[in-house]
Structures are given as structure tokens and as C-alpha cells.
């Protein structure tokens, strides 16, 4: 059992029409204490009807106990939600960083760079006034990008407690491809928390 990214603060703004900026900070508790991830993204809406957006983002994730980090640059084409569906497809270049500079988001070499595909397809299949449920798969989010051997899927939802306060929960796991048709399930991730939107 591992705890990670237990507290986060994020901002999503649209300074001008068709331009979206997002940023986030996430912190670990109990294990690899302290800063867990930093993310910054910019999106340009190319076709408003289906909210087709070209998004570029950088992520820095780190594990302080292991003196290890990973810097990533993501380029994705995202659409939706339309009729509850949202989708995304893109690429990520990932650069693991070890040793003294593990905390630095500015290191973009080190001998272990890789790139892989990103994908997302989720369906908000129930949406009521105070709550919603969504299911689907997504190989990336604001702070992380999965390896190509993982096929993550998840169910998440939220319930509006009061005003701007929302109770959110998520359960997810991944199918891990081993070879041929043999696969196994990855660890189960359970998230629950309270969010406040300003």
C-alpha cells in the first residue's frame, strides 16, 4: 500500500477566448513526503463545437525518499465533453532524473529518456444536479503519465456537499501487458477527498 499525491492545489483559467491555462501542485504525505508533482499546461481550442483542444503540458514528478524524479512534456489533442464523452490522444517524452538533480524540472537528459503514446476515453454516464459518475480509461492526467505497458481504467465521481465544496472519489487500476495475451492487474488505486473551488 502506497500513499501518494495526497493534497493538491490547481488552477484552470481562460485568459482569452479559445486559450486555456492550467497549473497544479501536488504533495505527498507518509511516503516520499513533500512536493510530489508540479504541472503546467496550455491549450488552444481549435474547434469549439466539440471543444477540440491542442494541449501542451510539462510535468515534474518526484520521489524524495528515492532521490528520483521524472520530467515529462506532453502534446495531446483532446475533445469533449460532448454528450458526457471526452477523449484524448497524444505523445509524451519522459526523462527520468536521478541523484542530486532529481528535484529539478529543468533536466531533460540523463540516458534513460523514452517516449510513448497517451490516450483517453471517458464517459460521464450519470449527471444529476449534485452528483455525477464517470467511467473509462486514461493513460494520463494532470500530474502523471503511465508507461505503455499499462492500460489504466477507472471509475470516478463527485458529490456537491455545499456551495463550492465537493466530495470526490475515484477507483482505478490498470491491466499490465506481459506478452502475447497474458496480462495481469496492477495495484488498485483508491482516492477520496474534498475539493473546494474558488
Amino acid at each position, binding site marked *: *500500500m*502506497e500513499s*501518494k499525491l495526497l493534497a493538491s492545489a490547481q488552477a484552470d483559467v481562460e485568459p482569452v477566448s479559445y486559450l486555456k491555462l492550467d497549473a497544479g501542485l501536488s504533495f505527498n504525505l507518509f511516503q516520499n513526503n513533500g512536493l510530489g508533482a508540479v504541472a503546467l499546461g496550455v491549450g488552444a481550442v481549435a474547434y469549439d463545437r466539440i471543444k477540440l483542444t491542442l494541449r501542451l503540458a510539462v510535468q515534474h514528478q518526484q*520521489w524524495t525518499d*528515492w*532521490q*528520483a*524524479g*521524472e520530467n515529462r512534456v506532453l502534446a495531446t489533442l483532446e475533445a469533449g465533453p460532448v454528450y458526457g464523452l471526452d477523449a484524448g490522444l497524444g505523445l509524451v517524452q519522459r526523462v*527520468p532524473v*536521478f*541523484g542530486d538533480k532529481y528535484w529539478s524540472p529543468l533536466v531533460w537528459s*540523463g*540516458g*534513460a*529518456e*523514452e*517516449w*510513448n*503514446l497517451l490516450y483517453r476515453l471517458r464517459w460521464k454516464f450519470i449527471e444529476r444536479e449534485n452528483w455525477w459518475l464517470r467511467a473509462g480509461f486514461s493513460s494520463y492526467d494532470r500530474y*502523471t*503519465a*503511465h*508507461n*505503455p*505497458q*499499462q492500460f489504466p481504467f477507472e471509475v470516478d465521481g463527485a458529490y456537491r456537499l455545499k456551495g463550492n465544496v465537493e466530495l470526490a472519489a475515484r477507483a482505478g487500476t*490498470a491491466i*499490465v*501487458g*506481459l*506478452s*502475447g*495475451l*497474458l496480462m*495481469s492487474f*496492477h*495495484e488498485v488505486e483508491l482516492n477520496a477527498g474534498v475539493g473546494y473551488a474558488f
Partner: protein
Amino acid sequence: MHSRRIALLGSAVLLALCACEWNLWGTVVRPTVEDRVRESLSGALPAPDSVAVNPDSFCFAVFGDPQIGHDFQTSLARFKEEAAERGMDFFCVLGDLTNDATPEECDSIKAQLDRVGIPYYATIGNHDLYQADGWERFKQDYGPSCYAVAVADRIKLVFLDTADGTIGLTQFDWFESELQDTLLTRIVLTHFPVFDGERPVMWRLASGAERVKVQSLLERYGAYAWCAGHIHGWRHMQVGSVNHFTCGSMAPGTLDYGNPGYLLFRFAHGSLSWQFVELD
């Protein structure tokens, strides 16, 4: 028309599944890496003995994936000649000993490995778990799935169970304790690679966090190398101070890249060297 296509596709998938010799249900209900590691570290399965070698000069080979199939073909007869010519003291096989882990394949690979005529160590691969009794059969033939062996008080071979593409918390704790033995040159031998080039292949350790933790531990304790199979080919990467080898394969048929071969380690004059040897 549309439903007919779906029916045809479904039939093709069903036929493909029926044609293979895997026990698909068995692969779902099999013991997990955590189960295998706990059993391996419980003391119920004694670790293989250390090989007696000349402490000043010895050599050994490492390769992956003989993956013997229903035709029982491997390159091990050719490897036996190599072992004799080069005076190898022992060799290590990095999992996927069989293709489908059927009793016939298990019997045949055990006989072929024994026939090489020198001591050897084995790790378990995902293909060795393609039958419900895959783990039972592996431990009966080769012993624990994770263990460590010191050779001539010079090097320590740390064998890990990554047959599920993951390491797990129990094995990580044990792995770190084994790496702390800094008096010996430590080489990790297992089935899955951590790093293997820039391309987005699926065949590395699955968890990003596990991968960075592995590399962090290898660096922190000054390990010499991570030797893996799974990908049928040869590759060497240097990440920080650690060598990452995809060690070559004895698998029949076309490899993922390169030709069949093995990684040869030689200890002499107080230092360790390596070379990849291609089989003709």
C-alpha cells in the same frame, strides 16, 4: 453485414485462444508475485548453492528466454559447445524457460539445461506461469523465485521475481537489504528490463514508480548491473553508473532484434568485464 463481421472476428479470436496451449483461467488464478516472494523468502525453499570457482579467475554466461515450445527446439546444444570452448564455470537463465509451461516443455527444458553440463541458476518469467501449476513446477525444478548467491566472495548475484512485470513491496525490502552488501560486486538478474531504449515498447517493468525506485537503489548502493531478458535481443544502456543489459536470447525463431546470443561476464585480475557473444 456489420454483425456478421463481428461474429467472424469473435470466432477468429476464439479459435486463436483455443489453438494456444495456455491455460487462460490458470493464468488468472495463479499465485501473485507477492505470494511467490513470501514463499521464496520463508526458508521453505532453500536457495541454490554457491558455485565453487577459482576466486581469481572465473567466467559465466547470462541469457534469457530459451522459451522452448512444442517442437522442443532451442539453441542450447550450440551453447553447450560455447560453454566448453570458453571454460565457463556456470550460467544464468533469465526466465521464460518455456513457451506454454506444459509438463512436456518443462521436462524438456530441464533436461536440455542439465545437459549443458555445468551449474546454472534460473529465474522465472511470465511464460513459465501460463499453466495453473506453473509456479509449483518452477519451484520443484529450480527452487525459489528470488534469492541471492555469492560467488567466490567476489560477486553477488541477486535474482528477482519480475514474472508479473512488477516487484512488489516485500521483494523491494528484501532487494534493498541484499544490495547493501557493498563488499561484493552486485549484479541483479531477472526477467523484465527496467530500461531498454527510447521506443515505446510494452516489455519493461510496468510501474513508473517501481522503475525509478529500482534505479535509485541500484545507484545508491553502487550495483554493477541489471540483467534482463523478456525482450528477445541484445541491448546495453548505461544509466548513471549502472549497466542495463537486455542479455540476448536463446529463443527459437526471429528475435525482436539481433541474433541469438548471450552475455559473458569474466572476472580476472580483480575486476569484472563483459562482452556479448553472438551465436553463429
